[in-house]
């Protein structure tokens, strides 16, 4: 990885992003011309590249940092976003007549294992005094869950944006979202090596990121116009998804470390990760002033 | 191998195979150019001809293996073929090759008997790849024998055999023919063999049968019979072997 991955030694900042992450807008507007961009289909794929040294910095949802920590990947969390609780939800078909999450007792629920929605499921079950045994969980990736959901092979689907927005077709209703249950933040991860070797580039990049994000929140219509073609999603859907999911950036505080630690502990209890991980040492607030 | 009893020739009956106006060409090369032929039950016909004159081609047509030949072929009764190459299935042992497709009970005994007749009783468990050229040819002959067909189509069945084994096989052929009375078309290069075994000799040349002659010798036959010499000379003549050429070779 260190030897031949594009631009490793050219001193360029290697940025990993996901299609619907906040970084997409920076990429789409071409605001960071000195960065080398790499697209990843999921958070775990991105942390894998981080581990291999193929990228310096990247952005993921709230579950991947926990698993990356459990996998002894060396990284630091240097930034996050405001909570996005409306960016994930439980979807059901209207025709089935479910009115509350409790109605899903004994029903099949599709979700992606080990993602933010898995944490949401934990919180939902907790809130309704249910356990995993009360529902029939089908672990499906978004691309597989969609046809399964559309064809009524599952009763409910817990999903995040933009798949969430795409699935909001006539006849589909939101049974619940993460409001009051989970924060569903985005996290900015860097490799310790990059932190040492390219601190100034990272700082510059974060500044750009913040500026662009703030611009996007201030100009939602233009943001939609720029991002829709990049995402290959039609403009109304893009607008709806961005409106609830694109939140300002925020510095990493000890509270945020605690929040992640709670998720990690929850996953440990579910045996999704083999042993307890310590999040606090991974949180690094040295760029906090950029987000304040 | 010893159940049927009809012996000797029985003409007058319906032929076991009739070919009329058979033609075959490969590309521009016409190999058979209107061949007519009939073999009656029990008759042994020797087919002679130069190398590449179409003997094997004709035999394949009579066996019904050449869909591209034109003409009219009528076959009656069962056939067995010994090809010019042995064509043993390499993945079957000798006994398996001989018994291939033989129905009914007692197959094992019959196969063992046929192998014994060709002198290979002990090689029944050998693979074809382990046989010598002559042994493979004898196995192929045994494979035809064990079928007790009405017509045997034999393409140089004894070509790879030494003098002694060849004699034994010729004797065996004569004996079995006397016992079972099958008809046979025997492609051979050996004029003596043709005269020893056949009731009739055909010579194929330029795509046609240019000679069709009875062999007017009494049986049992021997090469030192006085009638043998002229017949041999005539046949060799037909085949293009001229007396002054015969046997002149070397420095």
């Amino acid at each position: 990885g260190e030897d031949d991955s594009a631009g490793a030694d050219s001193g360029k900042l290697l940025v990993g992003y996901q299609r619907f992450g906040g970084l997409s807008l920076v990429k789409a507007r071409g605001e960071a011309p000195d960065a080398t961009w790499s697209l990843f289909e999921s958070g775990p794929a991105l942390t894998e590249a981080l581990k291999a040294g193929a990228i310096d910095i990247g952005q993921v949802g709230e579950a991947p940092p926990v698993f990356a920590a459990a996998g002894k990947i060396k990284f630091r969390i240097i930034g996050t976003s405001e909570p996005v609780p409306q960016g994930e939800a439980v979807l059901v078909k209207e025709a089935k007549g479910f009115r509350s999450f409790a109605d899903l007792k004994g029903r099949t629920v599709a979700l992606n294992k080990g993602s933010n929605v898995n944490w949401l499921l934990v919180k939902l079950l907790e809130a309704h005094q249910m356990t995993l045994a009360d529902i029939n969980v089908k672990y499906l990736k978004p691309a597989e869950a969609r046809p399964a959901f559309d064809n009524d092979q599952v009763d409910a689907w817990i999903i995040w944006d933009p798949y969430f927005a795409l699935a909001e077709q006539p006849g589909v209703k939101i049974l619940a979202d993460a409001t009051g249950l989970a924060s569903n933040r985005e996290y900015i991860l860097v490799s310790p090596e990059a932190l040492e070797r390219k601190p100034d580039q990272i700082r510059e990049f974060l500044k750009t990121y913040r500026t662009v994000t703030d611009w996007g929140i201030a100009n939602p219509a233009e943001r939609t116009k720029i991002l829709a073609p990049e995402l290959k999603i039609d403009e109304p859907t893009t607008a709806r998804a961005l409106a609830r999911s694109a939140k300002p950036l925020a510095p990493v505080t000890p509270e945020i470390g605690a929040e992640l630690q709670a998720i990690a502990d929850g996953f440990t209890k579910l045996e999704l990760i083999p042993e307890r991980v310590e999040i606090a040492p991974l949180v690094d607030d040295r760029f906090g002033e950029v987000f304040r | 191998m010893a159940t049927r009893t009809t012996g000797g020739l029985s003409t007058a009956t319906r032929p076991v195979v009739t070919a009329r106006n058979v033609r075959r060409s490969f590309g521009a090369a016409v190999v058979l150019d209107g061949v007519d032929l009939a073999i009656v039950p029990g008759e042994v016909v020797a087919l002679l001809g130069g190398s590449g004159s179409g003997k094997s081609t004709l035999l394949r047509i009579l066996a019904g293996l050449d869909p591209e030949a034109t003409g009219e072929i009528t076959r009656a009764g069962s056939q067995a073929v010994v090809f010019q190459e042995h064509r043993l299935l390499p993945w079957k042992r000798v006994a398996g090759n001989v018994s291939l497709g033989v129905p009914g009970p007692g197959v094992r005994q019959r196969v063992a008997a046929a192998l014994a007749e060709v002198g290979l009783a002990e090689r029944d468990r050998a693979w074809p790849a382990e046989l010598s050229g002559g042994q493979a040819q004898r196995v192929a002959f045994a494979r035809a024998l064990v079928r007790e067909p009405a017509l045997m189509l034999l393409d140089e069945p004894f070509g790879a055999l030494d003098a002694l084994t060849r004699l034994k096989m010729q004797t065996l052929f004569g004996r079995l023919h006397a016992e079972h009375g099958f008809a046979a078309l025997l492609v051979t290069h050996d004029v003596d063999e043709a005269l020893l075994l056949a009731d009739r000799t055909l010579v194929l040349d330029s795509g046609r049968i240019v000679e069709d002659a009875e062999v007017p010798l009494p049986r049992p036959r021997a090469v030192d019979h006085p009638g043998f010499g002229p017949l041999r000379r005539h046949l060799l003549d037909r085949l293009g072997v001229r007396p002054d050429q015969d046997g002149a070779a070397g420095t």
Partner: protein
Amino acid sequence: MTDTLVETARGAPAAAPDTRRSGGRTRSARRWRRAVTPVALLVLWQAAAQTGLLPPEKLPAPIAVAQTGWRLARDGTLGVHLLDSLTRAGIGLAIGGILALVLGATAGLLRLGDDLVDPPVQMARMLPHLGLVPLLIIWVGIGESLKISLVALGAFFPIYFNTYAGIRDIDERLVEAARTCGLGQLARIRHVVLPGALPSLFLGLRLALGAAWLSLVVGEQVNAQTGIGFLMMEAREFSQTDVVLLGLLVYALLGLLSDLAIRFLEGRTLTWRRGLQAV
């Protein structure tokens, strides 16, 4: 058992040109007959879509897919993606294929090569691409080399195994004959081993082509912005079934085209063969 074959003699003075002509006729007839099933499948699918048997949200009609294809072809998207995929597949196939040929030949020809090369290959052949991606990222990074490595890996095994088997299947008697003709090891490989193993090599190539594309789809999921695999997997994520189907159709077409190409090559190089004629 009386079986009678009566063919009215066609009475052509020279049978030769006649035969040849009829051969030509059947060959072109066969070519058309080969189109029957694919066309029938398309027609059935369209009919099912139009009669409502197959609602568009389950499976879009072929015409809809064709329209999507036309749209993407016109704006150049399809061309770009196809070209990138073809480039990756081509390079990966070349690398994996050459490696497989060399190693397969080593293992097939030399006993020592067999003992040293074959066991690790046998170990590696079951390794799933998806599982290898993390390791490959460490070794070759996430750039083009990752995709090419995956294609090379996918193409390697069919060619390796078919090379190996093709060489092992060669009639030893012919090799002996070549040796007595004074051919050295290299000349023997060129004149006997290679042509003898050629049918098997073609089969390997056929399978490798398929494997290369399959691998590419996995590869184009990691940090790719272009490629048919990327196009399709992206469409799949966003449930754009028509684009997914377009991708599948492109693959199907590639399958048919490569089959035609290989058939043509086979026809040119294997004229000497008399296989079992299908009847």
